[in-house]
């Protein structure tokens, strides 16, 4: 965290000053470790084993927060009797459908009930959609004593019973005493008076089990009562200024603004079906129809009428995974004609860079918008394969447009930061030359397209012609008014166009338009709330008058959990939001994340619907039953409980189960995306992990051109332990070549005790650290780490695994001369037998378009 979010880290240092214990778990000793109280070096890719053992520690030592767990989590819920755990099936949960190659999740549900998850299912392309009418947990299906063997608590307990300190030592390479220190520190610092927080970044997400990493932390935090309370929580430290915003207002294939799902071709054939499949009968998602109707009103204005399903039919439908890697594989197979890349540099920052560039070569045209031509814009003339002579520019038919972009100082707009806070940045000066904002580009592109289609009467062109596309143009450059766009995102009444002030005002009768319901209120009273800048020193520590956080300017989600079931703060020290009996409403330092006037003793009457089903002790209002989930009865594709699976390319056999890898992971079986052996590949004996440095930013587009940053970290390097250096004859400051079957890179070497070999299962295991900022252009250049990585991903969110994979390292610079990583593997398979990644039942998953092998049935029958 000190490495990548130094200013955010000031709060960690402040906590430390006040007595907090800082624990850093990382394969490397980083700048964070340097100031942490405890540094735990771990084998990359084994965090679930580590965290699972903490769950086991908490339960077996009876350190969990009983009152919190019983009341606020689904611990008492009884699970379907057909459910079988990985303990029973050697690493598989019940319901594996060998034919479809995916889980049938029906056996994972609550006894007699189905529940949809708050996040996940709805916007994710998951398996069969389900109707969730009547999905209320009835009292008979709960066991408040938590002793029923089929209740969640007991299932969790059994699931993690083999996750012991000894197993941690054997799997993660973490000495037992060190593990126990961490577990004890967490338990000691949780409860009524104290809270503990987890912070993570892509070191947790970029795995084939990334979602389950975070789920494990969620189980710990729920057991310890650390969610919805000040100083608690699980913080995703996001790496871009508006990466949270681009998820809320998603430039993502599977969502519409506000976490509404993209329509799925097979099911969501019309608005009724779409609402039926995605609305929840209970909990907050029962409001679903209001949000989609208001979104359609915002997009299609007058044309959106009740008689035409509010133009629902204008929306395109998805038929499977259309995520980045799927798209790039399709590009490489020449299935995509045009590609817009705005402020991103996939030729450096995305996995299997050679395949990324092969994809770019397969396009008809490419539009890149950035400060200066990036590697993605220059792939046709100076990419490694062009320099090596494997491809020449004369063979590449892609037409490339490079548009210079405006900087944030040259445009108005809002960023959403890592804590969901929207902050407005004001335009300071005019953009130079032909530099323009993306707002300008997209708006004027839209205007041109409307003009091009003006005379069309084809049904397919109606969405363009009916698109509400009138924004005030400012100045000579005709820059659209960003605040007007924000006004649409916030939403307004129709036809008066008065700004809405809260998402509770959003309607499903066409009388409101709202571009993103969770952002509703950001222009409350017509005032740009995101531009509020009342100094932090002039308000209390929650600082509600700085910027605006979604939803409803809430700074801490599910904060009703900061009070006990009776509505009183758990302790004076951890006071945050509580029930004011006199005023009969929730109050506190923050905007309460609860129905403001619902008393703690409210219990839903028989037959209640929608929000009325949430009782006074249901803090997790986005969940259908208002409880935090220790166990995930629905929504995830790879199991209801996090389970330790090895990375796709590991150095060890899974010590816990016969199933080596996540059975539901996404693989791309292509000649240009070969994999190493599941474990013990003699060609690639070391574990590698990629990361950022403080001095650079992601793929370097915003840092490798800046001399002040380049001089601080001028060259690509790798980090190895003295032991590995000795083994491979590497010298500090010298050169090394790192290779995978997909590519090889050269880098300077830092030999350092910050990396240590791990002793696991009587073997010495070496790890290699690889920063990924560099590539071949810019003012500081070097080989790109992503030449090494593979297309392989988590099934829930299609995020690749680049934080744990196997590599080889040798001394010296990489040999010149031709190499065709994108066309064929670098090394032919050895005689060494390929150990299976999957149990027999899981083998033989179907391979779909562009080589994608997945557990998602739909993907194989794509349109």
């Amino acid at each position, binding site marked *: 965290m000190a490495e990548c979010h130094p200013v955010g880290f000031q709060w960690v240092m402040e906590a430390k000053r006040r007595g907090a214990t800082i624990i850093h778990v990382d394969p490397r000793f980083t700048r964070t470790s340097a100031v942490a109280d405890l540094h735990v070096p771990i084998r990359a890719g084994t965090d679930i084993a580590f965290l699972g053992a903490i769950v086991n520690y908490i339960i077996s030592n009876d350190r969990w927060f009983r009152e919190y767990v019983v009341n606020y989590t689904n611990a008492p819920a009884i699970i379907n009797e057909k459910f079988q755990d990985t303990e029973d099936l050697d690493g598989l949960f019940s319901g594996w459908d060998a034919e479809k190659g995916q889980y049938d999740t029906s056996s994972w549900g609550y006894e007699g009930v189905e529940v949809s998850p708050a996040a996940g299912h709805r916007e994710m392309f998951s398996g069969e959609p389900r109707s969730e009418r009547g999905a209320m947990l009835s009292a008979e299906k709960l066991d408040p004593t938590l002793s029923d063997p089929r209740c969640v608590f007991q299932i969790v307990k059994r699931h993690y019973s083999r996750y012991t300190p000894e197993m941690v030592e054997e799997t993660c390479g973490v000495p037992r005493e060190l593990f126990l220190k961490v577990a004890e520190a967490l338990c000691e610092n949780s409860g009524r008076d104290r809270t503990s927080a987890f912070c993570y970044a892509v070191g947790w997400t970029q795995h084939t089990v990334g979602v389950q990493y975070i789920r494990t932390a969620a189980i710990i935090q729920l057991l310890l009562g650390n969610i919805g309370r000040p100083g608690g929580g699980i913080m995703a430290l996001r790496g871009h200024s508006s990466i949270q915003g681009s998820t809320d207002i998603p430039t993502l294939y599977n969502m519409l603004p506000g976490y509404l799902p993209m329509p799925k071709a097979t099911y969501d054939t019309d608005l009724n079906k779409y609402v039926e499949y995605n609305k929840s009968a209970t909990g907050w998602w029962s409001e679903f129809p209001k949000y989609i109707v208001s979104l359609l009103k915002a997009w299609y204005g007058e044309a959106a009428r009740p008689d035409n399903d509010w133009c629902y039919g204008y929306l*395109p439908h998805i038929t499977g995974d259309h995520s980045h890697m799927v798209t790039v594989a399709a590009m490489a197979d020449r299935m995509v004609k045009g590609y817009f890349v705005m402020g991103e540099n996939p030729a450096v920052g995305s996995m299997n860079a050679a395949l990324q560039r092969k994809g770019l070569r397969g396009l008809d045209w490419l539009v890149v918008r950035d400060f200066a031509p990036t590697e993605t814009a220059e792939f046709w003339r100076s990419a490694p394969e062009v320099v090596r002579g494997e491809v020449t520019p004369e063979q590449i038919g892609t037409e490339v*447009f490079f548009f210079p972009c405006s900087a944030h100082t040259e445009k108005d707009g809002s960023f959403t930061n890592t804590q969901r806070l929207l902050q407005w940045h004001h335009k300071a000066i005019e953009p130079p030359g032909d530099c323009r904002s993306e707002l300008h580009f997209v708006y004027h592109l839209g205007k041109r397209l409307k003009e091009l289609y003006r005379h069309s009467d084809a049904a397919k062109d109606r969405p363009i012609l009916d698109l509400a596309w009138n924004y005030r143009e400012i100045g000579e450059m005709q820059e659209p008014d960003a605040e007007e766009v924000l006004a649409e995102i916030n939403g307004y009444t129709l036809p008066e166009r008065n700004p809405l002030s809260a998402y509770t005002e959003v309607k499903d009768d066409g009388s409101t338009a709202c571009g993103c319901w969770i952002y509703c209120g950001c222009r409350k009273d017509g005032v740009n709330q995101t531009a509020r800048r009342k100094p932090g020193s002039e308000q209390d520590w929650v600082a509600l008058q700085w910027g605006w956080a979604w939803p409803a300017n809430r700074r801490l989600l599910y904060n009703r959990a900061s009070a006990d079931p009776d509505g009183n703060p758990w302790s004076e020290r951890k006071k945050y939001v509580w029930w004011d009996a006199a005023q009969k409403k929730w109050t506190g330092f923050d905007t309460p994340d609860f129905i403001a006037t619902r008393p703690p003793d409210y219990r839903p009457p028989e037959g209640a619907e929608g929000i009325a089903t949430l009782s006074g002790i249901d803090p997790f209002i986005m969940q259908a039953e208002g409880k935090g989930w220790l166990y995930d009865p629905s929504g995830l594709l790879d199991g209801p409980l996090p389970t330790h699976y090895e990375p796709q390319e590991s150095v060890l056999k899974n010590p816990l189960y016969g199933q080596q890898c996540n059975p539901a992971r996404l693989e791309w079986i292509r000649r240009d995306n070969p994999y190493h052996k599941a474990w013990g590949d003699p060609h690639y004996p070391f574990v590698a992990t990629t990361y950022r440095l403080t001095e650079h930013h992601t793929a370097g587009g915003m840092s490798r051109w800046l001399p002040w940053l380049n001089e601080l970290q001028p060259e690509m390097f790798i980090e190895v332990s003295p032991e590995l250096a000795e083994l491979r004859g590497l010298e500090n400051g010298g050169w090394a070549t790192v290779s995978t079957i997909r590519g090889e890179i050269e880098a300077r070497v830092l030999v350092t005790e910050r990396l240590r070999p791990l002793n696991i299962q009587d073997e010495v295991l070496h790890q290699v650290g690889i920063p990924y900022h560099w590539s071949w252009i810019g003012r500081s250049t070097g080989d790109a780490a992503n030449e090494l990585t593979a297309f392989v991903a988590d099934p829930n969110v299609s995020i690749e695994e680049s934080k744990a994979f196997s590599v080889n390292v040798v001394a010296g610079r990489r040999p010149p001369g031709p190499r065709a990583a994108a066309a064929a593997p670098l090394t032919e398979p050895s005689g060494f037998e390929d150990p299976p990644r999957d149990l027999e039942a899981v083998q033989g998953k179907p391979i779909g378009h562009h080589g994608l092998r997945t557990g998602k049935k739909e993907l194989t029958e794509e349109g």
Partner: protein
Amino acid sequence: MKFDLNKLVWPALRQVSSGDVAGLGKASFSKRTASLKSRLSDADRVVPSVCPYCGVGCGQEVYVKDEKIMDIEGDYASPISRGCLCPKGSATMQLVTGTHRHQKVLYRRPYGTKWEEIPLQDAMDMVAVRVKKARDATWEDQTGKGHPLRRTLGIAHLGGATLDNEENYLIKKLFTSLGMVQIENQARI
């Protein structure tokens, strides 16, 4: 008028007159030093902003003079960053005023070997025409089973985490309405 010894031009004389015998202090001040002040006092305006790098969202202040940027530094008022910036945030001025910033649209023909500069408006027109052509050529109305698709897989988009919410909103709004579904950004990476 009284003769002010401290106004003597030659510092060596001031040394004697001012009592700063060793000449280590005030006597040695130059005119520039005497009137030195921070350049920010000349700023025309201070524009509140937000750091464009990571997701922490540190407050920035942009000092402008004569429609040029003088300085970008942390905003003390921000309850997130309290005036601090990391090395990248501190280099923001170099990022936004850097000589690396290209100011013209570049175009590379199919099979071409060099960049050509083309006017912005022409480039926009060219892109619009290509979007229409690709869309029309790859339009899918429904699946084999008759389920609605109403989309194109012929055009894709990548990027958004470095952009403003408003920009992402227009991207999603326009591209979705064009029938594009392959809209992705850094959040997936």
